[in-house]
Each structure stands twice: as C-alpha cells, then as structure tokens.
C-alpha cells in the first residue's frame, strides 16, 4: 500500500491537494482537500446589497463573469425584478456569459487539458514555416518549456503529425481566447470583472456598431470551434478512447441551466434556458431542479459541526481549523442527500435527455462515432466532449440573439432597494452549477452565501461518509506507474478544477540575484 500526493499546484501554495492511497496499482481511497478558507462571503455582511455584484466577481480571477451573473440574478430576485428585466438586458447578459464560456472552454482544452495527451516536445522535429510552431520550437530548444512542463510522462499516443498540428492549435487558441475576451468587453465594458451586468439589466447600450463588432469576432470563433476545436477533441478521443470508461465518478449530474431564453418567469428553476435545469444519472433518469434539496455538510470540513446540514440560504461560515476528522476548507454540498457532479457535462446531458434536437444531434453524432452508449458520457472524455459541444451550441445560438437586440431600446429597469428580502441566483458557470443566496435586512446584506462549482466537484466526504465526485472518480482507477500517475492528472483535470482561487503573490525563488530592494 502506498500513498501518492497529486499536488502539482506547487507553485502557488497548493490550494488543491489530492491524496490517494493505492494498493497493487489500484486507487483504494482518495481525499480531495481545498486548502484555502473561502470566507469571502463574510466581507459582504453589512454592506449595501448592490455591492455584492462588484465584490463577488473578485472572488475568482477566472470565473468573474459567472459570478457577476449569479450575483445579479440573486439581486434581481431579492429586489422583485426577476421577471422584469428588459429583453435587451437579458440578451446582453447571455452574450456576455456566452463569450466568457467560449473563451474559457477553449482555454481549458488547449492550455490545461491537451498537454495530458499531446506531446509538445515533438515540435522539436518540426521543419516548416508556421511562426507559432517555430516559436514553440525555439522554446524547446532553449529548454524553456514554460507552461508545458513538467508533465506526467509515459502515455503519449498521438502520431508526431497530430502532436505538431495540435501544438499549432495551442498557439492559435491563445489568439482565439483573446477574441472571446474582446467580444465580452464589447458589452461588458471591461475584462476581467465586467462593469455592465447589474441588477435591473445591463448598463451598456445596444448599437448597430456593437452588434457588428461582436458578430465579426463570433464568426471567427465559430469557425475555429467547428474546424479546429471539435476535430481536435475527437482526434484525442480516437486514440485515448479507453478514457470513455475512466473517471466515471458518482454518476449523478446536476445542472442549474444557463442562457435565459425568456424573461417573464421569475422562477429560475422553471424558466426556459438554452441549456436546461435538472438532474440526470447514469441510468439516464432525469429529475426536475429543486433548490430546497441542496444542503451543505461539514463533518469533514474545517467548520464548526453546528453549521452542518444547512441550506445555503441559512448557511454559516464558522471556521474551526484543525477539527478532528476534517481535511478540507471546502464544505460538502449534497442534493437530496446524494453526491452530484456539476459542469458542462451536466447541462448537456440534461438537455440531451430532454430531447432537445440540436443537442441530441451533437451528442448522438459523437457517441455513434465511438459506438458508445450515453453512459460513456460519464467519463474523462465525456466531460471534454460535452465542454466542446456546449461551446458550439452556444456559439451557434448567439447570432440569433444578436438579431433579437433592439438598438435604442432600454436594457435596464429602475428599482427601489427593499428593506428586507431574500434572494437566490442560480446559473451554470463555465465549471458548473453556481448558486448565490442573499438575505437583506435594513437595506443591508445580513447574509450572503455562494456555493461554487468546485465545491460540488472537489468537496470532501459528507456526514454520512460519502466521498465527493472527484474522490469517487479517482477511487478504483488503475495506475500504470506510481511515479508518473498520469491517469489521476487526467481525471482531475477533466473536471476543470477551480480551487486555487485568489492568491497571486509572486514568490521569487532560485535566482534572486536581480532583485533590487528599492526601499
């Protein structure tokens, strides 16, 4: 029996630690620890509720846009505005969130996940004129592999040609991310931390110029998604098809849905969304979304036991570091008492099961190509495929939304701040189900709680001892080489983990010669 620590997050103080116990090359047990206390909600207490949207965006450097939408939906509902947002405002929010998802998913596949499958070092043998590849070649020659190494060696299966092609796309994808972010700023004003999404709608106006400017970038991105991103995901899947059976996890998926297609229904769990709300399990049984079934447990988390089993709207953040039996700062959220995974896969699987024709086509075409059943979606490759397909699904929907915008008409509605109110905002961020809850007293925030996607996916055990989704996805995995547990890296990365939030202090180490103390 041996203990492996999968902690590649060494450079920034290791906010996510994953520890597995192996026996005869099989993972027997796994513990996922969020190593950073997330008490950011405490900062909001006593503030003007309208501040929430500004502050929560600062929780996270990567998902600020998702947080801005969740917070704003939360405030809309608390202020009684949920069904009153002008169509322009609703659509612009969709466009802003859509742009963020597109940029994010491209980034995740090429710049985080692909390196698990694509051998960048093969570019050393490249003899052509592509400036991007030659630039990578230069890096390799200098031994400066920067963002590419160290990697887990031992299981690179793609042909040299595909390795080189995909690396060229890695460089191209950097460009595409930038396009997505530019697109976001057209209506969002600024990236990161957009200024436009506010309770009541958005602060940006609709003009024909903005629509054209957005569409121009969107077309380029759609072309990239269709002719590069999706083919690359399929090419990887072709050669690593065993990963359709690896990393299944808990087998339950939860989606809050996203991209509102109507504004008239104040109930976020029922309104029509492009990607649908609900639950689904490996037997493809679906359920409707009922947020009352969400409770958070803390028996294995560093919080006082008295705060266990609470609904997020009544959530408490009472830290108790070092508590016996606890191993994470993350709470363990459960839906209907059971373990649920969140992420693009959840939304796409729920929408697929609803029979929505576009999504059904997209997913069926992938499944038939690999002669796989829908159960294969619950896997490492299923997660990557769902992420690529949701990117296409939203990008293909956005031109229609742009046409529905009405230049010159309002995108915002005025409101009164209530004395006392409760609110809830639910939306799927790029990493999955994101919920915000607020309680307002005397026009001030009395309580604010966020349950973020990585809390669902990377949570520790609950009070009943049920391991979290990533823990379950790791348990039972066969490891070829304990010194190089690439299987585990691939499983964890397929969830697009997001726990190392917030700290970006530069820690110069090694060569410190050039540092000048100024004063």
């Amino acid at each position, binding site marked *: 029996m041996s203990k492996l620590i999968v902690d590649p997050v060494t450079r920034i103080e290791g906010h996510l630690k994953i520890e597995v116990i192996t026996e005869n090359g099989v993972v027997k047990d796994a513990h996922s620890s969020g190593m950073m206390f997330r008490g950011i909600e405490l900062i909001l207490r006593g503030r003007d509720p309208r501040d929430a949207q500004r502050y929560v965006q600062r929780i996270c450097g990567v998902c600020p846009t998702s947080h801005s939408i969740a917070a704003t939906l939360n405030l809309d509902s608390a202020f009684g505005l949920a069904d009153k947002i002008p169509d322009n405002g609703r659509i612009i929010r969709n466009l802003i969130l859509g742009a963020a998802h597109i940029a994010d998913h491209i980034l995740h596949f090429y710049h985080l996940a692909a390196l698990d499958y694509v051998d960048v070092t093969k570019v050393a043998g490249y003899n052509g004129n592509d400036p991007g590849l030659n630039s990578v070649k230069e*890096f390799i020659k200098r031994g400066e592999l920067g963002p590419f190494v160290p990697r887990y060696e031992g299981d690179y299966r793609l042909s040299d040609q595909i390795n080189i092609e995909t690396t060229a796309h890695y460089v191209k994808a950097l460009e595409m991310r930038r396009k997505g972010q530019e697109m976001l700023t057209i209506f969002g004003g600024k990236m990161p931390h957009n*200024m436009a999404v506010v309770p009541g709608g958005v602060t940006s106006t609709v003009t024909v110029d903005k629509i054209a400017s957005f569409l121009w970038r969107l077309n380029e991105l759609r072309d990239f998604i269709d002719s590069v991103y999706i083919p690359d995901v399929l090419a990887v899947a072709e050669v690593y098809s065993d990963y359709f059976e690896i990393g299944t996890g808990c087998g339950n998926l939860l989606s809050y849905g996203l991209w509102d297609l109507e504004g008239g229904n104040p109930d976020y769990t029922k309104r029509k969304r492009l990607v649908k709300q609900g639950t689904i399990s490996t037997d493809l049984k679906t359920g409707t979304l009922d947020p009352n079934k969400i409770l958070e447990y803390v028996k294995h988390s560093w919080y006082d036991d008295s705060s266990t089993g609470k609904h997020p709207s009544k959530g408490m953040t009472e830290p108790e570091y070092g508590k016996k039996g606890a191993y994470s700062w993350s709470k363990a959220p459960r839906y209907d008492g059971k373990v649920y995974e969140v992420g693009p896969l959840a939304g796409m699987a729920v929408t697929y099961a609803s029979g929505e024709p576009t999504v059904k086509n997209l997913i069926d075409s992938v499944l038939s190509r690999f002669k796989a059943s829908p159960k294969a979606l619950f896997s490492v490759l299923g997660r990557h495929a769902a992420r690529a397909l949701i990117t296409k699904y939203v990008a293909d929907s956005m031109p229609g939304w742009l046409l529905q915008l009405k230049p010159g008409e309002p995108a915002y509605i005025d409101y009164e701040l209530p004395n006392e109110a409760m609110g809830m905002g639910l939306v799927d961020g790029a990493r999955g189900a994101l919920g915000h809850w607020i309680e307002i007293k005397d026009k001030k925030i009395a309580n604010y709680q966020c349950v973020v996607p990585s809390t669902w996916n990377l949570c520790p055990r609950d009070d009943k001892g049920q391991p979290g989704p990533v823990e379950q996805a790791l348990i039972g995995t066969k490891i070829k080489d304990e010194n190089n547990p690439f299987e585990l890296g691939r499983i964890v990365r397929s969830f697009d983990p997001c726990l190392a939030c917030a700290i970006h202090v530069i820690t110069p180490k090694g060569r410190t010669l050039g540092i000048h103390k*100024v004063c």
Partner: protein
Amino acid sequence: MEYTKSAKTICHSEGAKRPKTRPERSEGTRDPSLLLRVTSEGSSKITVLGIGNLLLKDEGVGVHLVQKLASIVSDANVNIIDAGTYPDFLSLVDDSTDKLIIIDAVKTGDKPGTIYRFSFDDVDLDSAPPISLHDIGVSDSLKMTALLNRQPKSTVVIGIEPKTIDFGLELSPEVEGKLSEIVKLVLQEIEETNRAMEVNK
C-alpha cells in the same frame, strides 16, 4: 482603451462615491467596441498592470495602486489596467507594448512594506503543469505572449512585501504607508521609458 479607463471599481458602500442608480443611457456615450484595438496601430506604449485580489487585504495592493494611478496619470501613451485576479493578462496587454510595468504583492520574507523592483528575467520560471486555470501565473502569461511574438519589449515588476493576506478590504498600515512612494516609483518608470523612447526616435 475604454476598459482600462474603468479601472476603478464602483462601490456603493461608505468610503466610495455613490454613482447614480440609473446607469448612463445617453446615445452620446462612447461605444467601447469602437475603441477596442484590433491592430497595433496607435496602441499605448506603456502598460501598467495591477494584479491582486481586492478582498484579501495586502494581496490586493496592485489593484489599489492602479486605482490610485488611474486618477493621476493622464498620459495617452499609458494604459492602466486593473487585472484583478485574472491570471491571464495576455488579452489585456497590447501587441506593441514597449514597457509593461506589473504591480503586485511579492513575497520574499523581508519586512512588510519593502518595495522591490526587478526585471522579469529575475523571476523563477520553473512552473508546474497547470491543473487549474489559476495556476497560469504571471510568468506563464508572459511566456504565452512570447509564443505569439507579442511580448512587451521590456517588463518590470514593482513589488511590495505584504504583511496581511486575509479577508478584508483594507491594507495593512505598513503597506498603506508605502503607496505614495510606489506611485512615485511608477511615475518615474513611466517618465524614464518615455524619455528613452524619445531618444530612440
């Protein structure tokens, strides 16, 4: 760029200016899309980038500083950007940047409030494979700009040794007390870069 102008966070709480409840709607306001630069023509030559988390006291010192600078610097040559906790500033920095000045908390274990200045070459570049987006740090971001042949001609980091990294909006007195000194340092950096560019012309 429009989005650099809004480096200041709008807050409703005490200590911050209370904006009008009704957002600007006049058609006369500038359309940010028209100001988005897609070519390198006419780009700012100097970019000051503040990095950090405003919610974690001294960790956010870079953002505090660019917010201060935004109201002081009016040089059209200078882009001031609040990058917040966004680890990937590739898309925020213009192609033709001559000088990138990064302001961030820098931890070496020295006395809190110690100010450092170093060129990017001095930062350790050994990095772990990114398992999460947040691991794409300053050095990786710069490497990616290099992959696209878009790296700034020169990059300096002006760093401040933090004292307290914990939930809260205020800076520790040790760091707060150094802000004006750091502002001076950045202004000096800008001036020197401008002068060097003049000479090169």
